[in-house]
């Protein structure tokens, strides 16, 4: 390639020439090009598929594995490389759309810090090894003659589903074990348990589209929720004529709160009490009077407006106002979310919120039963925080002899008081399967380099199934980039084939395992195709879809013992601030911090990039004389971190927030030594009913360190439009959306 020097005229000279005659200079610019012969190679495919034409893109369907919503995606492939992901229009979940997190999958594939060879522990450090060496170490513990069984083996994962889960269970069964531990630092287990107990379904379908009024208690369904792309497509319908109204009640404004028609800041942990305040006012209306038993109604009387207002910090008039809207606008939909559920009374909060749906008669209207999956063994595992506690107990009892870890990073996400690192170190055989070294893999004895999500086969079933059941099919979008990476399935099958040749030796690889399983499912889809055609068409569609089967939510159970007490939390003199860390839709629990697109994608609410920050209400900041960029020390009883202050009006005045995701100590060049890890501040408070960690119940104190550094963000010096009419807002009663095309 010609460089500026080689051209003889450098840019500065060129500008001078330009001064004399712009037009003549342009002539040179449009002149001859640096055509080269024989410098580059041009090679052809040896025996390509007929549809592969150089220069034309080919799209392959697959399934996104970046979050448990498992959208159907399409990969654009040119000359054997995947360049970009788009949504797969065949998918009932993604509907042809895709989020930023999903698009960044390709950066897992091409990450410069990918693990490309196995690593084996040698003393204090991990050293590169061959697969033979790595497998030899593994087989010493888990090989043909291994007698490890039952609780001696642990398979630790995040949320898994489909054949990934099936194979893990088969693998463990081979060791007479069912010790598959699914841990999710940001688990939504509290809400799921409540909905399971109330409706009989942990994830009933929430029909946003059909609601005229949504009241969401911290449910960030547009950002970090259970199925953000699907919910966003439904939100678009919700906003069309006749336009629905969204009310968001939460301590710290989420992306969904940023899109609400009305946003109420609430004191963290009191969401359920506010919900009961609404319920109490609601049952005064004769129409809703009948909906619930008298004992519940009596119990509700304790939640009068004044008390509720005092506890929650919301003006009592808001209750009258909201109840008025609920009476007028039906159907409604009440949602509970992470900040309401991640509390000491999280279960009770979610219970109170679902009670509103029952009183309002939303069950069967905006809340319906999901379609049953004919392949229940493929349903996602219920990943919890409690799983980590169980694991830690097993580890500290020193029973575990082998631990396999995939898709989770407990060393990074565990709160300081769990202390799993120490216990994990004592396990004789620790195997991590990763695409990139992280904090947990660094502790292991063997680290195996996995294929990236765009190189592997798999099947996935999303937790949230809004329209029938969708089984997402993952297929490689390109040949593997690094020759010494392998599919997790192939690793397990290698071990299984040695231990149980009768049942597994006929699978040459994970591909054949999945292929056989998919073909076996053919009768369910009543397909008359040949096996090969069925497999090919399944791969082409990217999804197997079981249509919606209407079933009713039969019984709704309400138990007054499960309602939150109308008590005000005692003030804490040492730690006066509530600490409500935020979940960023892209970095989530930190597993995506290694992807540069996401690091540089500004946080939607604050526009900060590449760092951690402390959100503090401008009013509080004024009282404490804190300016933007002031370095603050945030301290809980568990530890302290320092980060720059960002003045954020969308937060309760006595609450501060730090986003999850940063503060890695080992996760490649884009994530390491960047920002702080708020998991390390979390206090040992758990939800009383489920034992789940109350992520948003920590109290902290903040101190100025005296330093001030410019905060790196995308927004300019003003956060106001200054009368420039950039974003114009129209009142809903004035807009005539039905007249629009």
């Amino acid at each position, binding site marked *: 390639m010609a460089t500026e020097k080689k*051209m003889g005229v450098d840019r500065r000279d060129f500008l001078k020439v330009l001064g004399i005659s712009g037009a003549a200079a342009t002539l040179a610019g449009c*002149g001859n090009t640096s055509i080269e012969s024989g410098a580059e190679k041009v090679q052809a495919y040896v025996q390509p598929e007929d549809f592969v034409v150089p220069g034309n893109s080919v799209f392959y369907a697959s399934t996104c594995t970046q979050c448990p919503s498992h959208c159907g995606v399409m990969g654009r492939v040119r000359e054997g490389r995947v360049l970009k992901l788009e949504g797969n229009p065949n998918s009932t979940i993604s509907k042809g759309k895709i989020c930023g997190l999903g698009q960044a999958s390709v950066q897992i594939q091409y990450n410069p810090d990918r693990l490309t060879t196995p690593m084996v522990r040698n003393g204090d450090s991990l050293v590169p090894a061959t697969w033979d060496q790595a497998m030899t170490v593994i087989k010493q513990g888990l090989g043909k003659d291994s007698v490890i069984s039952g609780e001696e083996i642990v398979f630790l994962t995040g949320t898994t589903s489909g054949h990934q889960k099936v194979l893990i269970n088969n693998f463990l069964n081979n060791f007479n074990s069912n010790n598959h531990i699914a841990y999710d630092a940001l688990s939504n287990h509290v809400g799921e348990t409540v909905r399971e107990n109330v409706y009989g379904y942990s994830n009933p379908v929430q029909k946003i589209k059909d609601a005229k009024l949504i009241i969401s208690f911290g449910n960030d369904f547009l950002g970090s929720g259970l199925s953000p792309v699907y919910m966003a497509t439904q939100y678009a319908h919700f906003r069309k004529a006749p336009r629905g109204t969204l009310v968001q009640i939460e301590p710290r404004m989420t992306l969904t709160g940023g899109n609400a028609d009305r946003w109420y800041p609430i004191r963290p942990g009191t969401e359920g009490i506010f919900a009961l305040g609404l319920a109490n006012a609601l049952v005064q209306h004769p129409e809703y009077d009948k909906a619930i038993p008298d004992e519940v109604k009596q119990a509700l009387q304790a939640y009068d407006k004044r008390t509720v207002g005092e506890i929650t910090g919301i003006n009592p008039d808001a209750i009258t106002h909201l109840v008025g809207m609920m009476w007028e606008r039906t159907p409604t939909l009440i949602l509970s979310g992470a900040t309401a559920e991640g509390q000491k009374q999280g279960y009770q909060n979610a219970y109170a919120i679902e009670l509103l749906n029952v009183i309002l008669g939303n069950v069967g209207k905006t809340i319906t039963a999901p379609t049953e999956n004919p392949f229940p063994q493929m349903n996602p595992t219920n990943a919890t925080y409690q799983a980590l506690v169980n694991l830690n107990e097993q580890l500290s009892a020193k029973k575990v002899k082998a631990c396999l870890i995939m898709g989770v990073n407990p060393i990074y996400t565990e709160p300081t008081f769990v202390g799993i690192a120490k216990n994990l170190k004592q396990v004789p055989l620790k195997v991590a399967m990763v695409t990139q070294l992280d904090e947990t893999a660094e502790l292991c004895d063997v680290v195996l380099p996995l294929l990236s999500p765009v190189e592997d086969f798999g099947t996935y079933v999303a937790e949230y199934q809004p329209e029938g059941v969708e089984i997402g099919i993952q297929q490689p979008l390109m040949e593997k980039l690094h020759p010494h990476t392998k599919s997790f399935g192939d690793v397990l099958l290698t071990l299984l084939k040695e231990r149980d040749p009768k049942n597994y030796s006929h699978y040459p690889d994970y591909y054949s395992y999945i292929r056989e399983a998919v073909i076996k499912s053919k009768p369910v889809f009543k397909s008359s195709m040949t096996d090969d055609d069925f497999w*090919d068409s399944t791969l082409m569609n990217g999804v197997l879809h079981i249509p919606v089967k209407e079933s009713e939510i039969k019984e709704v159970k309400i138990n007054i013992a499960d309602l939150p007490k109308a008590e005000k939390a005692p003030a804490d003199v040492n730690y006066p601030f509530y600490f409500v860390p935020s979940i960023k839709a892209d970095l989530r629990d930190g597993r995506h911090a290694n992807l540069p697109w996401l690091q540089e994608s500004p946080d939607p609410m604050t526009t900060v990039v590449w760092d951690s920050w402390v959100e503090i209400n401008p009013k509080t900041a004024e009282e404490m004389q804190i300016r933007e960029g002031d370095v603050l020390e945030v301290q809980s009883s568990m530890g302290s971190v320092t980060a720059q202050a960002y003045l954020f009006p969308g937060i309760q005045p006595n609450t501060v927030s730090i986003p999850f995701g940063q503060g890695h100590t080992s996760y490649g060049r884009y994530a390491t030594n960047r920002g702080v890890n708020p998991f390390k501040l979390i206090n040992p408070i758990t939800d009383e009913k489920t034992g789940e960690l109350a992520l948003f119940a920590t109290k902290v104190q903040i101190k100025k360190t005296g330093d001030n550094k410019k905060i790196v963000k995308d927004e300019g010096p003003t956060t106001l439009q200054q009368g420039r009419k950039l974003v114009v807002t129209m009142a809903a009663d004035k807009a005539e959306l039905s007249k629009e095309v």
Partner: protein
Amino acid sequence: MIIRKILFVFSLLALIVASFSINAEPFKAGGALGTQTIDGYNALGPQVEQPIEFPHYIHAKIMKINCMYCHTYARRSAVSGIPRLDKCIGCHKMIPEVRDRPRIKKLFWYWDNHLSIPWKKVHDLPDFVRFNHERHIQRFYFQDKRPVREVCGYCHGDVANMTTARRVKAISMGWCIDCHKKDHQISAVNLKTTNGPHDCWMCHK
């Protein structure tokens, strides 16, 4: 649907260089291969040594094979690419009488080892240029019904008289524009004329 052998190497970094060089390579009036000097842009490129000395003259001239039989992508894609290896083998399997020739032996060596032939690029446009083979072939071969050797020959010269291809045109922007300025008959039957597009973003990416 698994992607089988993918061996197409592409200039990965589509680095643009703002090129202001007056003389990247000196023009040579007239082509060594007897092409006519009608446009003043004839510029013979270097003879590039290829892994197999492919005889275009045998295929195109003696056997009278249509260019597009092998260069099948040219009418369907922006890039013409290089014919897939199984295309060569498809015919040569059936021609045992030439099987012992050194060039054919080499060809089968690549085939047997399932390797792609590392051809060198002769007409290498800068990476900031979007040239579309499909449109030119569709316009002048299918629409105007001109002889295929003439259509390809506008840019690639009289390849039928070459062994391995050698560049005979400047392939510079001025040369492109020269042709785009000319009046081209709309089709074989329609005598009305049009010019090629002149918009920067038509060819610059």
